[in-house]
């Protein structure tokens, strides 16, 4: 019988955009009850605009925003599965009071606002811990909770810049480039899962709640260990080196038969080089004595690259990958978004969370978890909540409010299910 590892853990999720939601959807997968709190005056910015502009239509199912576009935008629905959704205006006194009541009934609270936002709302850790002395408060801000830049704003892609990641990304010897994939967001999110659970363990050990200070920027810099150690040890400031590796060669991506189709290849040892030569059918050029050893291959990698490209051009990326891997050579088809969801390896491992969207009448493959636990597997994902979808469930069921009390909150504009924003802030 499978069980939920995080059964009984209730999390108040004030996070928005990406990094925080990338913590709470996996926590939900593992059995935690996640309550996503938004204001219906602003909404999570990934819900997009109420009347989406033409250049954003590609983020909606079949390019159609539908009658309630804010509930079915691609990024919002992928990142907010496995959560209950409520609205609450935390700038209003009534909203703050309701939040305190929720905090009393939750094990943990997570937020990724600019550092001062919760202070300004008078909902900071010192105040919330009074409401619930066993609360874990995970603050996942861009810069951390202290320091001169604590109130600076960021997005996933500017974080690549300020963390150092961009400085080592780019074509060999050329200007730096951002990944445009906001790489720091999902990393901080994934780490947030462990951070929040460490906090809960601290509460079990001490009986007291705790504050967790996570700087997304520092988390990302921590991924650059090699580059930082090179600077610390040797004074070297690494820059972009493209697809080259400091020791391996050949190492890079090589064109295949299809349109913009590529295979990645990396040769780390003499044995793998021999495997590559076998996979290519022992061509004459490969017998060149300059390629006999790793350093020779590295120094003459452009020559090897041109021969290797000649071979890969006659193959699909999957053919090249399997021929090389059959000889023990690290190689991979460079998959596109449409391809990766049908990759047989990920499919056989049940990586994707196929989730039905009733408004559109079809299922989409969303990312699952980065782990498989033998006794406590992840649950089937539940769809991302519509704006304020679970107001009655949470305010009635969890807080015990009457329908009249809930209606009064709606009337005052403290809660609501209709979006009142006109444009998204970012």
């Amino acid at each position, binding site marked *: 019988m499978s069980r939920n590892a995080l059964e009984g853990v209730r999390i108040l999720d004030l996070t928005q955009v990406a990094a925080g939601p990338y913590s709470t959807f996996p926590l939900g997968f593992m059995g935690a009850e996640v309550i996503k709190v938004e204001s219906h005056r602003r909404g999570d910015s990934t819900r997009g605009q109420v009347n989406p502009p033409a250049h954003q239509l590609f983020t909606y199912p079949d390019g159609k925003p539908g009658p309630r576009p804010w509930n079915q935008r691609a990024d919002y629905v992928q990142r907010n599965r496995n959560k209950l959704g409520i609205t609450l205006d935390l700038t209003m006194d009534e909203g703050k009071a309701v939040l305190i009541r929720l905090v009393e009934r939750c094990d943990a609270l997570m937020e990724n606002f600019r550092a001062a936002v919760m202070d300004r709302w008078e909902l900071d850790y010192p105040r919330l811990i009074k409401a619930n002395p066993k609360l874990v408060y995970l603050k996942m801000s861009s810069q951390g909770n202290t320091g001169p830049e604590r109130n600076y*704003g960021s997005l996933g892609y500017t974080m690549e810049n300020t963390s150092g990641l961009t*400085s080592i990304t780019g074509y060999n010897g050329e200007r730096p480039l951002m990944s445009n994939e906001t790489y720091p967001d999902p990393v901080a999110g994934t780490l947030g899962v462990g951070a929040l659970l460490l906090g809960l363990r601290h509460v079990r050990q001490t009986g007291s709640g705790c504050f967790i200070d996570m700087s997304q920027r520092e988390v990302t810099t921590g991924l*650059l260990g090699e580059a930082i150690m090179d600077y610390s040890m040797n004074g070297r400031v690494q820059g972009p080196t493209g697809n080259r590796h400091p020791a391996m060669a050949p190492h890079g991506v090589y064109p295949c038969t299809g349109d913009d189709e590529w295979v990645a290849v990396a040769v780390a040892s003499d044995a793998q080089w021999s495997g590559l030569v076998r996979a290519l059918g022992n061509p004459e050029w490969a017998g060149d004595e300059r390629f006999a050893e790793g350093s020779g291959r590295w120094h003459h990698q452009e020559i090897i690259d041109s021969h290797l490209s000649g071979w890969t051009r006659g193959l699909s990326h999957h053919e090249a990958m399997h021929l090389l891997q059959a000889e023990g050579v690290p190689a991979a088809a460079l998959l596109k978004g449409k391809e990766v969801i049908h990759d047989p390896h990920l499919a056989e491992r049940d990586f994707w969370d196929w989730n039905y969207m009733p408004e559109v009448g079809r299922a989409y493959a969303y990312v699952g978890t980065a782990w498989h636990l033998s006794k406590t597997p992840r649950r089937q994902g539940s769809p991302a909540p519509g704006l304020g979808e679970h107001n009655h469930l949470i305010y009635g069921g969890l807080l015990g409010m009457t329908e009249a009390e809930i209606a009064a909150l709606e009337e005052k504009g403290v809660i609501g299910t209709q979006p009142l924003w006109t444009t998204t802030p970012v």
Partner: protein
Amino acid sequence: MTFNSPLVLSDLTVIDASQGISGPFCAKLLAGFGARVIKVEPPEGDYARRMGPFHQDVPGDERSGLFLYLNTSKESVTLNLGAPGGAALFRRLARRAAIVIESFAPGQMAEWGLGYAALASENPGLIFASITPFGQTGPYAHYQATEIIIQALSALQYPVGLPGREPLKIGGSPCLMTAGVSAFSAIMIALHFRDATGEGQFVDISAIESAAVSQIHASVHAQFGGENPLRRDSQLSRTKDGWINVGIQDSSWKQFCSLIGQPSLAEDERFSDMAARRKNTKALVEILEVWLADQEKEAVYHQLQSMRSIAGPVLTVADLVGSPQYQIRGYFRPVDHPTTGPIPYPGGPFTVAEQPWRMERAPLLGEHNELVFGEMLGLAKPDIARLRELGTV
């Protein structure tokens, strides 16, 4: 205040048989939060000891910056798991452990009699985490991978780089590191369950899946809009000393025009709001770059952030080590090692209840053989000597 309470994981012993980047990074995080991590290396050492960068660019077992970074706060023993008595000693270690981490090819540990089933039969509370490129099952389970292979297959790499040129790897080893982060969080989930039930379990981590979680646009946008996201240029502008993403918001546009000495631009219809500026990006960038050419990237960063614009300069590792934000937070911390002397390392990724992050130097190869095999397992000196002769230790 709970400032003086022991570190959160200080009651746990971890046996870390992993090598390379992902597994050791995971175990480093566990050690930083207090776990006792015993690193079990083959007699020739973790292969990361032979990966650069090296101190003064000279290779050597105790000279790899990558290894030194990834193995802080651990003990090291050498143990040949395939040699006589090697597996038996490992089983004795695993009986005392809460967590075992390994990164061998799928099936290798079981071949040595050290698979999850064998170890759990002697220690039902054991959390056994395997961290490999492709995971334990599936058609590619025995395929080989490095960082670029993981970025390629996970769909992360395809949209990175410039239009018309080849897809570009994100620099460094971010996906291998992130697989370690994923493993850390997975182990915390298993530990939560173990604390509640006393039961351990098997944890299967695949770097490909960890990277596929990290591709946050490609697979979902391809399905919704029907097109694969494509490579596009970065919005970076050149300053006197580097590059910056300016990120101007509607609310700060007017202030920004004053900052660059062109207040009349605020009335210019080409740039009146975000949509107009998007349409006239080229003209705007030209104006911007004339101004930026005489500015320093960090000065612009602070000026724009003070207007609540979300600017981000491209900082190098040298900029980061000198960053006031990092300095005041004590992010970089000196670690002394016989090879390098004291040099700055990146610190912990977060703090819990203001507890200090534990960061002691990486162990020398086999530095703790006597401590672990002698004091912890109670082997007599002649027994250890005999194992050394057999090539086991």
